[in-house]
């Protein structure tokens, strides 16, 4: 009923018509008030309890992993190549593999994701087709990652004959996180106030100029925050890579995007498989998990810092 901070015609007329109307008399039920206050206190404790529960579980998990990794996690562990001797084994290959993976995922998802979001928010005529695309993108975001692995295997691995190369893995991972980037970017673009667009149009700017010079710069922090979170998901995902058949025993360090590779989560996965024969693998897996968690922690902090720093108030 409010537009431009003013009462719009019909409503203001209605208000005037109703101005003389009397409020019906009623008493406030004191007893129910007491019940409500009790309920409110009770739910507060209930909710804080569930928050504490989640924290405790996380704490136990972290404690367990970090204590297992103690003594194993050092600079050598990061720089050594893979080895069958636990004392010599390192994750250099997996680290480099994960970095390569990101070198594909980041540009592909940013370019495709942001363009799609721009199209959907600014250009599509909000008709049935656009709506259909939107619903599907939102649905895609909740498809299990194994399915994306299968898709990647058949399309990139087999049809395009990329095998289990970095390129195949990167493209598969990009597909996996693309919906998240699209949705996050859409939300960031939608949050750009209409009056900024109006200001640009009123100066004779066309749509593309307005998008490029006004909408995108304002939406950028939101887009980045969402994308970093999405990409950090790609770093931690295992299932699609397993389906693609990414090997773990890569003794050769990849040097290009067509090489075979291994990545941090895959490394963790295979080490945990073999803990029965070689108990030290559990420590190696734990140390790798700590590294992975460290990377994710840094990325999430970056997302939060960007969000806080650029949060604009209009």
């Amino acid at each position, binding site marked *: 009923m409010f537009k431009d901070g003013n009462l*719009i015609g019909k409503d203001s007329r209605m208000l005037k018509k109703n101005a003389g109307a009397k409020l019906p008399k009623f008493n406030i039920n004191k007893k129910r008030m007491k019940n409500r206050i009790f309920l409110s206190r009770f739910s507060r404790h209930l909710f804080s309890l569930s928050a504490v529960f989640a924290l405790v579980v996380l704490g136990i998990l972290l404690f367990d992993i970090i204590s297992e990794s103690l003594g194993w996690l050092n600079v050598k562990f990061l720089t050594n190549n893979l080895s069958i001797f636990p004392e010599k084994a390192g994750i250099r290959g997996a680290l480099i593999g994960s970095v390569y993976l990101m070198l594909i995922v980041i540009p592909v998802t940013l370019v495709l994701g942001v363009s799609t979001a721009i199209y959907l928010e600014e250009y599509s005529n909000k008709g049935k087709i656009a709506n259909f695309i939107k619903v599907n993108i939102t649905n895609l975001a909740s498809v299990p990652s194994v399915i994306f692995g299968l898709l990647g295997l058949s399309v990139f691995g087999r049809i395009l004959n990329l095998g289990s190369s970095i390129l195949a893995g990167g493209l598969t991972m990009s597909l996996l996180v693309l919906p998240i980037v699209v949705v996050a970017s859409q939300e960031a673009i939608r949050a750009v106030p209409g009056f900024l667009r109006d200001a640009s149009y*009123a100066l004779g700017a066309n749509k593309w100029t307005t998008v490029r010079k006004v909408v995108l710069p304002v939406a950028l922090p939101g887009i980045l925050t969402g994308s970093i979170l999405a990409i950090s998901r790609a770093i931690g995902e295992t299932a699609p890579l397993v389906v693609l058949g990414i090997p773990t025993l890569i003794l050769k360090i990849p040097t290009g995007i067509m090489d075979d590779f291994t990545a941090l989560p895959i490394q963790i996965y295979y080490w945990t498989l073999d803990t029965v024969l070689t108990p030290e693998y559990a420590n190696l897996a734990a140390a790798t998990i700590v590294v992975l968690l460290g990377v994710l922690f840094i990325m999430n902090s970056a997302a939060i810092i960007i969000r806080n720093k650029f949060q604009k108030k209009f």
Partner: protein
Amino acid sequence: MSIANEKKKEAVYDVRGLNLWYGEDQALKDINMEIEENKVTAIIGPSGCGKSTFIKTLNRMVENIPIVRTTGEILYHGDNIFDKSVKVEELRTKVGMVFQKPNPFPKSIFENVVYGPKIHGIKDKGLLMEIAESSLRSAALWDEVKDRLNDNAYGLSGGQQQRLCIARCLAVQPDVILMDEPTSALDPIATFKIEELIESLKKDYTISIVTHSMQQAARISDKTAFFLMGELIEYDSTSVIFSNPKDKKTEDYITGRFG
């Protein structure tokens, strides 16, 4: 015929039989009105009568609302602005707009002012600086901001922001400036400054201003149009409207009997 031609010369806008619908609801009903050059035309009327809709039609900003449909003609210097051959971007460089709520871009003061010239292809730094200075001077803001042109525009007060928006609008060298309640979000002193500014801009620009303040309309405008429920009830020189209105509804409105 010759009389009509003579009239055309001084009228910047000639609105003929304009109707506008938001979906099913008609917001403007058969508006006929000429807006004269180098005059301040005030548009008054109760909330929801279609004032904003009307001036947003003059630079075709209403088209950004998908459900809008119009019929009739708006001649701008003789050309129908709804004609296919008219480029809306070009029209809007000739017809600037200042909004109710100051809406600078979240950029520096300088970048705000030169936004228009830049998107229209001016790259020369020196020229941009000249444009910025003269626009800010015309908007009576230069002295207050000349030492902080690179600061963010949101660090300015509301009144300064509004004058910045006026400067930004002047920087594309328009011919007409449309203002939709430009002072309703401002305090009396800032309002006074804007009104003074409008006075001084009048000799170079044609100004059309929507206002809820009768006093403001009476103070600054040469002609006043009174709208009611989508219709143009009365349009005459401001002195006539405020001292001797012909329509009973106009009289009721300006004497505060409704609205």
